[in-house]
């Protein structure tokens, strides 16, 4: 095979350069002559004014992703002093709680609006351990925990990655007695709307502990307590 000389390579390069330059010039000329591209300029050639108005509404919204805690019906094994049913961790000593449902999910409350809210609860019907269960040392208690800690599934948005309600993960991690009057469990009445609407920190779990002593009186019909969760926002 005959070797290609440097002269030929140089000529080829020159031809390539000429084609590139020619192509660029032709392209620019076509662009400038086409409609709407008379000349390249940064100044506006005409103007008109218009008014756009927009009203953004606020949506105050709360979702309870587990609306009931149903411990069901059953009895306490006579070999035990009590049956403790905790919606956070389930039954303590499963053999003590006979026929009851082993509930392991609390009320999962989530801000599904577009504005921050505060949440309080009030309780109706049988809101004390004595009226709900009776017997010796019954317990009917409440606690609430940010869902980035509880990690209860079922949020409408994605599972929280940050602590809700002002950034304290274990919001009220020890059980306390339930009162009919209730209280604020996230934020307060003084315009502290601390349950964020941001999906990463918009949920918390309210757990219930129901402890039934072995001597709890027999009840013919099921007794219940009903919590009303109030979501409040600015208006």
């Amino acid at each position, binding site marked *: 095979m005959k070797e290609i000389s440097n002269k030929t390579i140089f000529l080829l390069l020159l031809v390539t350069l000429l084609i590139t330059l020619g192509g660029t010039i032709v392209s620019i000329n076509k662009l400038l002559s086409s409609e709407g591209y008379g000349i390249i300029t940064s100044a506006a050639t005409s103007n008109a004014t218009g008014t756009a108005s927009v009203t953004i509404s606020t949506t105050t919204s709360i979702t309870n992703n587990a609306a009931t805690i149903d411990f069901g019906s059953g009895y306490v094994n006579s070999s035990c002093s009590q049956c403790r049913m905790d919606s956070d961790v389930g039954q303590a000593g499963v053999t003590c709680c006979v026929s009851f449902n082993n509930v392991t999910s609390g009320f999962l409350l989530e801000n599904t609006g577009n504005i921050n809210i505060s949440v309080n609860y009030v309780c109706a019907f049988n809101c004390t351990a004595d009226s709900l269960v009776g017997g010796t040392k019954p317990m009917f208690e409440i606690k609430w925990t940010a869902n980035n800690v509880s990690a209860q599934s079922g949020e409408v948005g994605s599972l929280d990655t940050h602590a809700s309600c002002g950034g304290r993960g274990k919001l009220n991690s020890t059980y306390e007695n339930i009162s009919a009057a209730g209280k604020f469990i996230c934020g307060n009445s003084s315009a502290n709307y601390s349950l964020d609407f941001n999906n990463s920190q918009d949920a918390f779990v309210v757990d219930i502990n129901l402890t039934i002593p072995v001597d709890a009186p027999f009840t013919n019909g099921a007794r219940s307590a009903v919590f009303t969760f109030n*979501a409040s926002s600015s208006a």
Partner: protein
Amino acid sequence: MKRFSIILGFILISFLLFIPSLSAISVMGKQLSPILYVSGKTITNHYVIADTNYAVEVVIKGQLTEYINISEVKDNQFDMTIQFPDKLIDPGIYTFTLSINEASHDYSGTVGSRLAVNKNFQVLVYSNEKELEPSFSATSVNINETVQFTIFVESRGYQDIERVNAEIMVYDTKNKELGKVKTKDVPLPALLNANLRGSFDTKGLPAGSYHAKANVFYDEKMKSTNATFKIGSMELILKNYTSIINPGFNEFKFIIQNNWGNPLSNVFARLSLNNSEILQTPTINVDAWQEGELKGIALVNFSPGIYSAVLHLFYEDQNREIPLNITMVEIISPVVKEEKSNIWIYVSLSAVVIILIIIIIILLTKIREK
């Protein structure tokens, strides 16, 4: 077939038992709060209730409820109308709540729940007297320029103010009064606002921080408000720098502040230590009154001790020398395990490559021979 039906039924019941029940309630409406009380004024806002599967009840609670009406809820929508009376009420902040509650329904389970959403409103009732709220601002300027003062006055009363004006006193850091400025008189109608403006010539005043006090006079009353401003000169102020170093390579940082009311460009620094230049930083631009960071890495191999250094700051076409002290501290190095040399890895790899090349050459030769 019968067995299949039983299994299907069992699966359905299990599904219904274990699926978490869900409830929700929402109310959507235009943001209104805080509402300014204006006697005789009527405000109507529309609300839409959503997401709930239950009947709802709409309730108004709190103060001023006698002036608020809720229309009948139709298709989960309703209007709230606020009709303020034709009289003035006591000044203050009033609150009321629009509450949308799920009505009672059958609750399955031992512990049931229902939801409610509340919208909390504030109504601001201003004074029946002539009242205003001033806020005062002053522009920072360069040396010999004129400071512009602006006093924003907002009426917080239901009576028109016939005349508002202000007297502005300018002070230096030692509270020495440097001059006075008077603004024009302007009328201030009830619930509206206005600006009072004045200017102050800083000719002859040195660069530095100053403050001004404005006494705002409105009819027979007076309120005071304060503002601060700077008079700038074209200079860079060194705010902080790397003062402790170790033998070897060190990163030097110099935090500087532009004391000029315009951006400074081409800002860089040279650092001389023990009479020899060891560092020149890259060039940066620093906006008016803002801070910037000059930094660079230099090799310093002096014995421990305190050394005098000179920082030359360059900006625009000017420069400034700042004497510094830099302390060299000996590194107390922790016991470091001697790293094993990696040379044997490279030697082995090279050997493998050479052997492979030899094998390939041999194979090629054999193929050619065949």
